[in-house]
């Protein structure tokens, strides 16, 4: 219990000082033990593997189920002494939560490793088997190695920079420039370029496919056009103040105020009002309904995974 309730800055068997040799040894040992456990699980027969996987899945899920279902300590303070069994368990769950989050963070970080392993396996295979497009795999390896080397080199320099000199690019060295070029110069710009392609596809699709062929598509298009125009503040501010002026001068609406775009009874003619109505009464309820369905599906799927009922998972 003390293990789970430990306060972080205390260095003990479970926590070493940042940057110390002991920490590095602990990381190495943990990695080896983790890899060994993973390998053992990988090669174990499925009749042994499945109960192990299910036990861990169930234990992980059970913690969070208990955390939400169990009465929580009111006005909790670390120095409080729990009173009775219910409060004892409540305190334990409360204390253990950050440590469980740490474990889940570490497990999720391992997924990154799994992704890298998967990429390495696929691209190595492609090069070794001399498959078509293996040139791209070579580019992948060069790019990955370059950003790995420059990334760690830059990081180690920044770790050693006790005076914060590297905050200023005038003091940068080759590693810092290299990391900057690879991350900011290449990776980010390529990422941005990939995403911006969506605009081209949307324009092309709007031109060729967005057609009024039925009542439904007409309603959809009218709503879409109103919402798109409502994003054009140059148009909206002029239209809305025009409506306010109309209310004031033509209809003598005493509540209209062109200075603040308030149009009294003619508010419904304002573009912003129509767009807000569409969003509040059409778009949001529809999205909530979809979210509700997704939520129910996620709950059902979560229960199946937790209880080991999912086929292809731990059930036979």
């Amino acid at each position, binding site marked *: 219990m003390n293990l789970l309730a430990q306060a972080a800055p205390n260095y003990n068997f479970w926590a070493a000082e940042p940057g110390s040799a002991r920490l590095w040894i602990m990381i190495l040992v943990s990695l080896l033990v983790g890899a060994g456990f993973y390998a053992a699980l990988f090669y174990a027969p499925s009749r042994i593997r499945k109960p192990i996987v299910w036990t861990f899945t169930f234990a992980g899920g059970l913690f969070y189920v208990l955390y939400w279902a169990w009465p929580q300590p009111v006005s909790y303070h670390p120095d409080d002494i729990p009173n009775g069994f219910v409060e004892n368990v409540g305190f334990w769950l*409360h204390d253990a939560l*950050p440590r469980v989050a740490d474990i*889940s963070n570490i497990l999720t970080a391992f997924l990154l490793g799994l992704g890298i392993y998967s990429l390495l396996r696929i691209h190595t295979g492609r090069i070794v088997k001399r498959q078509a497009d293996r040139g791209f795999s070579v580019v992948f390896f060069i790019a990955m190695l370059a950003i790995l080397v420059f990334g760690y080199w830059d990081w180690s320099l920044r770790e050693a920079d*006790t005076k914060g000199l590297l905050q200023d690019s005038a003091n940068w060295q080759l590693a810092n420039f290299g990391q900057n070029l690879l991350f*900011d110069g290449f990776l980010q710009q390529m990422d941005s370029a990939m995403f911006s392609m969506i*605009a081209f596809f*949307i*324009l092309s699709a709007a031109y060729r496919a*967005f057609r009024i062929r039925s009542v439904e598509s007409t309603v959809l298009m009218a709503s879409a056009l109103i919402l798109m125009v409502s994003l054009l*503040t140059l148009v909206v501010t002029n239209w809305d103040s025009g409506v306010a002026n109309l209310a004031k001068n033509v209809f003598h609406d005493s509540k209209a105020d062109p200075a603040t775009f308030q149009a009294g009874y003619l508010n419904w003619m304002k573009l912003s009002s129509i767009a807000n109505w569409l969003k509040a009464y059409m778009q949001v309820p529809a999205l909530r309904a979809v979210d509700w369905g997704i939520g129910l599906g996620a709950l059902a799927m979560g229960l199946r995974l937790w209880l080991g009922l999912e086929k292809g998972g731990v059930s036979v």
Partner: protein
Amino acid sequence: MKTEKTGFWQKLQNVDRRVLYLILVVTTSVLLSPMFANISIPDDPEPSSKALYYKLMSAPDNKTVFVQSDWTISTRGENAAHLEALLRVLMSRHIKFVIFTVADPQAPGVYRDVIRTINSERKSEGLKEYKLWEDYLDLKYFPNAEGTLNAIASDVRKAFGGVTAKDPTTGQDRNVFESPVLANVRAVSDASLYMIVTASSSIDRAVERLNEKATLALMCTGVIGPSAIPWFQAGQVKGVAVGLRGGLDVEYMMKHGLNYGSDPKTARWAGHESQVAPPVSEGKSLARANLYFLSFHGAIILLILAVVVGNIGMFVTRKKRTA
């Protein structure tokens, strides 16, 4: 062989997509050029943006703000404008902040670029630069959003307890809670605001786990906006800036304030006249969102034209066929 004569609309129906792409590139690029850079776009901010700006400007300056920056460069068009505006407001008010992500390993690199940009901008204007450890903390990346947000809600001292940062006075790594930024934070409720800048559904996780513990506010992409607005309507999120328009809203109020004096350009919030927020007192106000918005106008107008022209073409062609 008899060839049928193709009319104008029929030709228009068969325009090569590369021509459309070229028109889009030219329109958006020209409107991004320096000759349009200083144009101030008129705006009447959305109510959710007004609520956000009021929260930002009324947050006590002696309390820390938590910033969860869950975006990468692919949504720079919207989220960079959001984060820049947010940090400009915080820095102009000398509010300390912690920044981290629960979404993507690339996110810390991206938000560090934004901080560096604003710091160098402030330096060139002769304003105080924000210093790591003293003024802000970079807690980096937490891979599991669900677990991390649960831990923050339960006990922030334990959730971030293992994180260290370099103290520039000694050059040594120290626990982040020894920094002036987090020294007075014992629970997430001690932060005046918990800001989320996101391009994903991480707002849903935050509302589920932190809603009762922290004052949440959101700046998100246009895609995420519609599913996040109900959180605002329900009062679970105190303010929302949606998409590039939301970024422009905040920048506009940074320039002209909210319900501020008799300035005819100030944003007025009907029914909330008592909620007054002045413009920012130092640094830039109209920046990235304002710069992008004219180009955005061009792209949207082009999109509307494409839909309209495509449909007229279809109707004319169909009419000719039936005639």
